[in-house]
């Protein structure tokens, strides 16, 4: 039929994302100039502080680990056509599971059992917190965006209650649990490789495995097939005998599980105790990570490193210039804006340009 010209892969996966990031940086530079920080210096400080030495790199990859989990969580739900804004709450809730295992079993079990158990619990708790919104979406049609947002708030309140009334050691004033026994601490990378100290830990490997697992799940199993089929075209899914509600719930369980694994990195890997608000917006930023990573595990790992860089670079900026780290939040917002909400702004003209060029090449001889 019509001469179809497809845009080449490098257009959508390299040129456009990079253009969007550059645009975000450019706009943010204006803000840097306004607050009297030379944007070039700022970027140099950020890059140097996050990749320039093993400590910075460690932090960058540590943050990236968290983003990989929350980004994958968003992506899996997205492939099912769902917007899981509840990563924050799922990770929060999973923190309770991890804490329970670490505090209850840590003293009586060897590391080799405690850590895997804690990982499982993180997944189970995360999934459990995603289950209710999923169920309500599947069976009662409540809008999952609203319900997951509400579940973030509910998780936050629940966490306060449990932490303050139950988990806080008597007499302690901070809202934190007791410190976990050391045999539930994730081995840290710097101890092994002679790096400078950073919280980067074995969970990074778990995150990479999770990314690979997510890819296998989505593109190499029949369940992933059903998730994607439903996400793209729910009529076709119904035609194929795919159960809407089962698949929605499955996708959200996997999504919640991935978000829950965030707790492993943050709690077993770094904090070693449950603290209020320990998720610190990573659940939300996971949405940006997934968007930038185009909802593909490989893209997500790369985007996660990018966001890890932003986060660590932001801290570095603060050390260097005393500017508020929030300027990096602005940068994140701009990245979401340009690579998410305004994705067509550059994509359309660029691809149009490309197509016009290609069509001319193809059509001229045939049609005059």
């Amino acid at each position: 039929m019509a001469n179809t010209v497809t845009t080449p892969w490098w257009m959508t996966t390299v040129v456009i994302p990079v253009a969007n990031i550059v645009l975000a940086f450019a706009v943010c530079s204006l803000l840097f100039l306004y607050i009297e920080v030379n944007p070039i210096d700022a970027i140099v400080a950020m890059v140097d502080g996050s990749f320039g030495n093993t400590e910075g790199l460690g932090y960058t990859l540590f943050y990236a680990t968290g983003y990989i989990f929350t980004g994958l969580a968003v992506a899996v739900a997205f492939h099912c056509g769902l917007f899981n804004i509840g990563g924050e709450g799922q990770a929060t809730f999973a923190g309770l599971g991890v804490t329970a295992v670490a505090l209850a079993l840590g003293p009586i079990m060897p590391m080799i059992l405690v850590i895997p158990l804690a990982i499982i619990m993180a997944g189970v708790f995360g999934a459990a917190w995603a289950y209710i919104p999923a169920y309500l979406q599947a069976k009662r049609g409540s809008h999952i965006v609203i319900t997951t947002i509400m579940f973030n708030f509910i998780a936050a309140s629940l966490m306060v209650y449990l932490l303050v009334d139950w988990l806080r050691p008597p007499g302690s004033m901070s809202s934190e649990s007791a410190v976990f026994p050391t045999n539930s601490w994730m081995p840290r990378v710097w101890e092994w490789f002679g790096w400078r100290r950073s919280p980067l830990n074995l969970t990074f490997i778990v995150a990479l495995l999770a990314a690979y697992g997510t890819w296998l799940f989505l593109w190499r199993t029949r369940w992933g097939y059903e998730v994607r089929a439903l996400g793209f075209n729910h009529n076709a899914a119904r035609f194929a005998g795919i159960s809407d509600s089962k698949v929605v719930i499955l996708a959200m369980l996997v999504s919640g599980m991935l978000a829950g694994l965030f707790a492993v990195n943050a709690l077993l890997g770094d904090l070693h105790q449950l603290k209020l608000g320990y998720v610190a917006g990573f659940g939300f930023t996971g949405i940006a990570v997934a968007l930038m990573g185009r909802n593909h595990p490989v893209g997500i790992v790369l985007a996660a490193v990018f966001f890890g860089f932003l986060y660590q670079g932001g801290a570095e900026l603060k050390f260097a210039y005393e500017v508020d780290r929030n300027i990096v939040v602005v940068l994140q917002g701009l990245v979401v804006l340009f690579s998410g909400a305004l994705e067509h702004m550059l994509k359309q003209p660029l691809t149009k340009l490309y197509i016009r060029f290609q069509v001319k090449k193809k059509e001229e001889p045939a049609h005059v």
Partner: protein
Amino acid sequence: MFDIILVMVDATLRVATPLIFAALAGLFSERAGIVNIALEGKLLLGAFAAAAAAYFTGSAWAGVFAAICVGVVFAWLHAFATVTHRGDHVVSGLAINILAAGLTVTLARHWFDMGGQTPSLFGDARFRPITLPFVDLINYIPVVGTIYREVISGHTILVYMSWAAVPLVWWMVFRTRFGLRLRAVGENPQAIDTAGIGVAKMRYLALTVCGVLAGLGGAYLSIAHSAQFIPDMSAGKGYMALAALIFGKWRPVQALLACLLFGFLEAVAIRLQGVEIGGFVVPVQFIEMLPYVLTVVLLAGFIGRAIAPKSIGKPYAKERT
């Protein structure tokens, strides 16, 4: 007991005001087919703009004006992404919320260097409660007088504006040409387009009104309800307003009632700590959770299904490319 109820109702009205503004703002947006989780960010930006402008100028009205301007600008950004470039509405909303969180604190630190807060506002730089006329006159009438004095009178001007806004919005949406087109563009933009009215124009207009109202809500937070901006001061009110809008089935009066309900629950949570129910102390966190749990329960369809404007969240594109 009567006293406690009065105090609660009084607080409810104060706490619900930003929700009312934001819900009405959302109403314009969503009726026009634009999902607006950016309400949260607009409230925050409005609050910051109002506090900063009021501080610099010493005038609360200048603060309101600034909040409205900022509300409208970010509403246009939302429109630019979702209408002009047909971006995803939720993603655009999130981007604005993230931007709002970052921008307010960055600018606040740059201008005031107070950990992201603005300085406290004094005198005319903030709105004060106004005592309505005739309070003394009818004060002596038993119940009515007390209610008038304690509950109706003694709020800031913005509270009264929010009350006035509800019937005004109702009239605009259901009794004017603008309202007819607004509702049509959210139900079936093609019908609007083929009727010779620009879909984009209608949606920009709707979002402009949305920005104005959200700005008012933000201004209320920082220069009427309190007297300074603090980071993350919106604290989820934008989301709650959206939920109220959905309960209200996208109708102003019902949305108002939902806002009052949420406001009431918040007022309860503020005041009732360690309430005992049958000897069991209800943790305050559970009361704080209540609006959220209620939202979830109600959304699960126990109030009858809310039917959203039909083309909400769908980018309008004539040409598939």
